[in-house]
């Protein structure tokens, strides 16, 4: 099949995913992943080089956006309580899933590390949606969960960038340029964005993309991954974006309209349904290897710091989606894991986005109104309440 024919199929799938997402109220990323699975398995497409390249870049853009979406002032207020929660939420499943993949499934050391990283994640977006939907994002418990999620994400990004480094001189410019961008970009952003921003030619988005490409190139040269610096760069610019929402929105429009659909479609296209079918037992065990340490590790801490909603907090901290997919795709692209291992990891990641969320919402969801009464000074539901007009 020609590359243009593949582009037509992908464009149709991207369009279909966005309309299905609106109709069903399910995240477009999940639909894109599902359509990617369908396209990859029905058409038996081999992904062209340009798709792999754009998907890799999209993964970095997603990571940057995740960093830029962190509420830094809120994290500063909550970090002491959230640090242990977020750290355990990363370390426990990372170690257990890695050990399980290595010893029980016989995966290579590097493949087991990818499994550990991919299954250690907590999805900030899934957590955020549940909290906003219930108004709990305005309460202390909601803010604490969001901060802990950031800690877990940071652990995942750090592990992905550090664990696979092959020492070479390129690591020095990679670290130096990363540090220079993280420190320098927030300093020049106000001037640059004021001088060149608010134009349809979008110099400010091009500045971010150029920085991310530079990080990707240096990361590649250093046999590392640009995930960590991209995440930290987003974090460094988060205050700027918090006061310049329009710029952030335009960046999101560009990312969501073109880049991120290719990332999730590419992820889905590499999932082999036949491999999953043949390994359903392994899939269940890997799911357990993510959930069991998350539940066992996070619950004792959550019971204290997020009382009386320990179970709800633990289940939300057990979700995963974007970083899990990014880690798995990195492993596949780098030749660390094969297609079957990738299919299993992505399937577990998707299951972990759905199953704990459903259980948390169905059985453990606290009422924001009760939370407000419990913790005076916080604002919760109703979102709007105007008495007597």
């Amino acid at each position, binding site marked *: 099949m020609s590359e243009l024919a593949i582009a037509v199929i992908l464009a149709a799938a991207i369009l279909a995913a966005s309309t299905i*997402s609106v109709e069903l*109220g*399910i*995240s*477009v*990323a*999940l639909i894109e992943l599902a359509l990617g699975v369908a396209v990859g398995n029905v058409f038996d497409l081999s992904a062209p080089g340009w798709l792999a390249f754009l998907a890799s870049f999209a993964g970095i853009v*997603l990571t940057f*956006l*995740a960093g830029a*979406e962190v509420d830094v002032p809120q994290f500063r207020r909550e970090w002491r309580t959230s640090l242990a929660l977020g750290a355990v939420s990363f370390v426990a499943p990372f170690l257990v899933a890695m050990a399980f993949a290595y010893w029980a499934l016989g995966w290579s050391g590097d493949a087991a590390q990818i499994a550990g990283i991919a299954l250690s994640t907590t*999805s*900030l*977006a*899934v957590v*955020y*949606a549940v909290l*906003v*939907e*219930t*108004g709990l994002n305005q309460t202390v418990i909601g803010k604490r969960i969001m901060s802990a999620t950031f800690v877990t994400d940071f652990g995942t990004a750090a592990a992905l960038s550090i664990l696979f480094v092959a020492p070479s001189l390129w690591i020095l410019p990679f670290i130096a340029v990363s540090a220079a961008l993280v420190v320098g970009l927030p300093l020049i952003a106000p001037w640059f964005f004021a001088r060149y921003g608010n134009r349809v030619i979008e110099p400010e988005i091009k500045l971010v993309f150029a920085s991310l490409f530079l990080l990707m190139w240096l990361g590649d040269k250093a046999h590392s991954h640009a995930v960590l610096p991209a995440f930290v760069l987003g974090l460094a610019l988060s205050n700027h974006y918090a006061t310049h929402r329009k710029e*952030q*929105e335009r960046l*999101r429009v560009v*990312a*969501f309209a073109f880049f*991120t659909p290719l990332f*999730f479609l590419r992820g889905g296209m590499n999932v082999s349904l036949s491999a999953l079918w043949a390994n359903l037992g392994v899939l269940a065990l890997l799911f357990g290897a993510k959930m069991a340490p998350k539940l066992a590790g996070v619950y004792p801490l959550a019971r204290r710091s997020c009382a009386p909603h320990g179970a709800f907090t633990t289940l939300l901290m057990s979700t995963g*989606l*974007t970083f899990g*997919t990014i880690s798995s795709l990195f492993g596949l692209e780098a030749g660390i894991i094969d297609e079957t291992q990738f299919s299993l990891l992505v399937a577990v990641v998707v299951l972990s*986005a*759905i199953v704990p*969320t459903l259980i948390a919402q169905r059985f453990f969801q606290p009422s924001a109104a009760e939370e407000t009464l419990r913790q005076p000074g916080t604002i919760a*539901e*109703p*979102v*709007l*309440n*105007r*008495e*007597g*007009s």
Partner: protein
Amino acid sequence: MPFRRILAAIDGSEASDRAFATALELAQLIGARLTALAVEGPLPAYAATVGEVEEVKREKDAFFGRLLARTERQAAEAGVELDVELRPGHAAELIVRVAAEKQADLIVLGHKGHFLRDHLLGSTADRVAEHAGCPVMIVK
């Protein structure tokens, strides 16, 4: 039975507009106090980015802001005392809960009649009628 406190569930649909008009007329006629409750439906489930959630949330806030402002105008024109509430969550569950909180003695809501969904899952009106602790008026 004299109704002193009426709860009208609104969502901007034609059916809900008809229900609110009926509730307003009734409240005006019998001098009842009226509460308009709008329930913000779910955000994109299992989102991959915070941006996706924020965008939908912003759209919903804008939509319901306009809806509630219009509702307040209509009530002011009719000379009816009105509270408006916007809450996130599950529609049927919240309508029943807010009715109990407000000690409403009548719930008024519309029926959109989505054949397939109603047949498979039951409508919001069906569920409210089943679980409410007060009379329910369903306006078609």
